[in-house]
């Protein structure tokens, strides 16, 4: 058996087992009936010209349908209940960005530390991965956590988990991505929180700029400051102070919560969603900013509180 190394794993396994037993019972029922009929009513024992004329039994069919309907709705509801947990990361999650490449994984921490094919996380603390891909679609899959999420180029997807077992847990790429697909392996190294704190600190010393600092430099280098302040004052464009997580009102009257995907879109296709009260003059940074620079700018905007 696979270890249950995340808080969600036992929940997923319970539903798996529930469906497994239901299925086994149904299957044995069908096969037992089939085998019994085959033996009992085999032609050697049962005159082919004396079979009774039975054309159906609607009450039986209806009760099978209704019974089954209830059962599958139970399975659905149970699946949905756990799935909602899977897609709702807690507020205090430790955020780490993940970039999938053909054919390796890159993990970047808030302090600027980068790891390849190894993700170090503390045990017992929710971790939220903010993931994208540099080339084709990949899928981050940790069997011991029972979790997986695709990484799609051009957008961010997220996956959160809380590890419950220290040690190394294998990571596979589950979405076919070419030659090295089956070699696109990594591991999640789960350590005790104290050890993690130590590791984080020592890594900090030897690092240069963290993503938010890189983003701050880009903000002037790429001329964002021509149109945006970070002080709350609007210029040509709105101030970017404290916009992350805020409900932004758009020109078409809709409201949208500012998250990583919205920010990315604001840079790549600024005209797609316009902030209310501002002209559509922001240039696109598609091709001007690399994926990593986009991540850095977003980290900077997130840090403006």
């Amino acid at each position, binding site marked *: 058996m*696979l270890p249950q190394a995340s808080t969600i794993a036992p929940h997923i396994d319970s539903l798996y087992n529930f469906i497994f037993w239901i299925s086994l019972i149904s299957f044995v029922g*069908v096969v037992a009936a089939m085998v019994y*009929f085959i033996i009992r009513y*085999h032609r050697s024992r049962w005159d082919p010209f004396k079979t009774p004329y039975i054309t*159906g039994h609607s009450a039986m069919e209806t009760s099978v349908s209704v019974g089954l309907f209830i059962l599958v709705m139970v399975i*659905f509801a149970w699946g949905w209940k756990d799935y909602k947990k899977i897609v709702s990361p807690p507020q205090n999650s430790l955020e780490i960005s993940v970039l999938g490449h053909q054919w390796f994984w890159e993990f970047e921490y808030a302090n600027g530390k980068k790891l390849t094919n190894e993700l170090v996380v503390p045990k017992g603390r929710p971790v939220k991965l903010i993931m994208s891909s540099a080339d084709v679609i990949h899928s981050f899959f940790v069997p011991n956590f029972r979790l997986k999420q695709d990484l799609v180029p051009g957008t961010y997807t997220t996956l959160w988990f809380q590890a419950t077992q220290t040690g190394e847990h294998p990571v596979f790429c589950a979405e076919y991505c070419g030659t090295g697909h089956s070699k696109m392996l990594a591991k999640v190294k789960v350590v005790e929180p104290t050890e993690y704190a130590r590791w984080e600190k020592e890594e900090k010393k030897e690092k240069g700029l963290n993503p938010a600092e890189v983003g701050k430099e880009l903000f002037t280098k790429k001329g964002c400051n021509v149109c945006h302040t970070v002080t709350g004052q609007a210029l040509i464009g709105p101030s970017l102070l404290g916009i992350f997580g805020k409900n932004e009102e758009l020109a078409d009257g809709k409201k949208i919560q500012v998250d990583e995907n919205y920010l990315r879109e604001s840079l790549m296709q600024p005209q797609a969603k316009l902030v209310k009260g501002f002209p559509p003059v922001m240039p696109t940074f598609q091709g001007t900013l690399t994926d990593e620079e986009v991540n850095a700018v977003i980290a900077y905007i997130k840090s403006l509180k």
Partner: protein
Amino acid sequence: MEHHGESQGHHKSYLEGGGIGSWLTTLDHKRIGVMYLAATMLFFAVGGIFALLVRLELLKSGPLFSPDVYNKFFTFHGAIMVFMFIIPIIPAALGNFFLPIMIGAKDVAFPRLNLASYYVFIGGALLAFLAIFFGGVDTGWTFYTPYSIRSATSVILVTMGVFVMGFSSIMTGLNFIVTIHKLRAPGMTFHRMPLFLWAIYATAIIQVLATPVIGITTLLLVMERVLGIGFFDPKLGGDPILFQHFFWFYSHPAVYIMILPGMGIVSEVITVFSRKHIFGYKAIAYSSLAIAFISFLVWGHHMFVSGQSAWANFLFSILTMLVAIPTAIKIFNWTATLYKGSIHLQTPMLYALSFIFLFTIGGLTGLFLAALSVDVSLHDTYFVVAHFHYVMMGGTVMGLLAGLHYWWPKMFGRMYPEIWGKISWAFVFLGFNVTFLPQFWLGKMGMPRRYHDYGPEFATWNMVSSVGSWLIGVGFLMMFIYFLWSLKRGEKASSNPWNGKTLEWQLSSPPTTHNFDHVPTITEGPYQYGVLR
């Protein structure tokens, strides 16, 4: 059914007369059906060889072929099996042959369109096969973007092949719908139609409505590759997930294009070999339509972890669960038909019963994948591979083999050798389970699909699975040999070797070119077996 004095002893069978030229230009639905059968079985053999190569690579951990070669193998296996074998074979081969006969007609509504659809199909298939000589394709049969935009292989040839073959599928579907509506013999009401025809009818509706979408999708993909338009490429502001929506909007209904005809065959074979009226005729007939309808609303269940919104997942999961109901009704009704029947375990029946056995496993494992949280862990693993092989091969292919053995005497006037039929069945059935049952376990342990190589934790079951594939291979090899052998040497078949009640069994084996000399009049349903109350 009433028999209106067919006197066809002096007429020539449809197989006689004319050289190869008269076959290639024939408008006879039976000859076209046979030509479809020959072509699709050939493609099946090719797809099967690729399957064996895939399993050979996976026999042991460590490379045998290079990853790129392996990736082409599984792509060809999937694309050939889906687009050139399993989608066309039952409707276009067996449906073409038997649909007009079973409604008491002399041909399909548009015989020329029928022949055209054959050549369009062959043309599309050749286009796709051309890719083998131009570097192959390595995208998987799903052609997911942006991989398929960047892949240096012959994506265009194969997707254009799929595009062209789609037209053939639409033509066949259209032809069948019109034929069923317009050419039924007097007295052949919808509710007196054999269930095989209900299944073909439901299939034809999906073919006509869904296939245009794959056509457009492949076309957009080709434009994207050639002109760099930017529908799907994020580098150009496109959305790669949009492709998945388009693709599955066709390819999920297509799953039912594949399975419904197999279900239809099982309904025929079960009744004939238990000499019982089908249990719940209307429930089976209408559940085919229900499945066809729901099939259009569940495509998103292939994309639960693609990043689509949680609410989309909510809807797709709940709708997917509903598919279980018409499916289970069918399984229930087939099993109930056996009750107090007089069961004759000839090869067609063995395959029909295998269908129930294997398809039940395929259906039940679908529940795991429809449940959102469990799917997050199982998606894109070998669990899925096992699941759809139990449905497609354990379902459709078993249904096909039931039908092929059942109708072989009618189509070619010769019996297949029963004893070899049973031996080969044993290899196929056991081999199938040895191959695919372990894959559920592999998937549960976390082995992703489309893997060229794997770690030691997956070694044992992969080896078992590969050995199973050889058993299947042996079974099919036997079958190919005895079918071909029987064409010339098989025992001559009587007009009704199984005591069937549907119209085809009233014709000589093989039928004459015009099927019926006089239009038959139908006065009762197709399954009037047993002691009438």
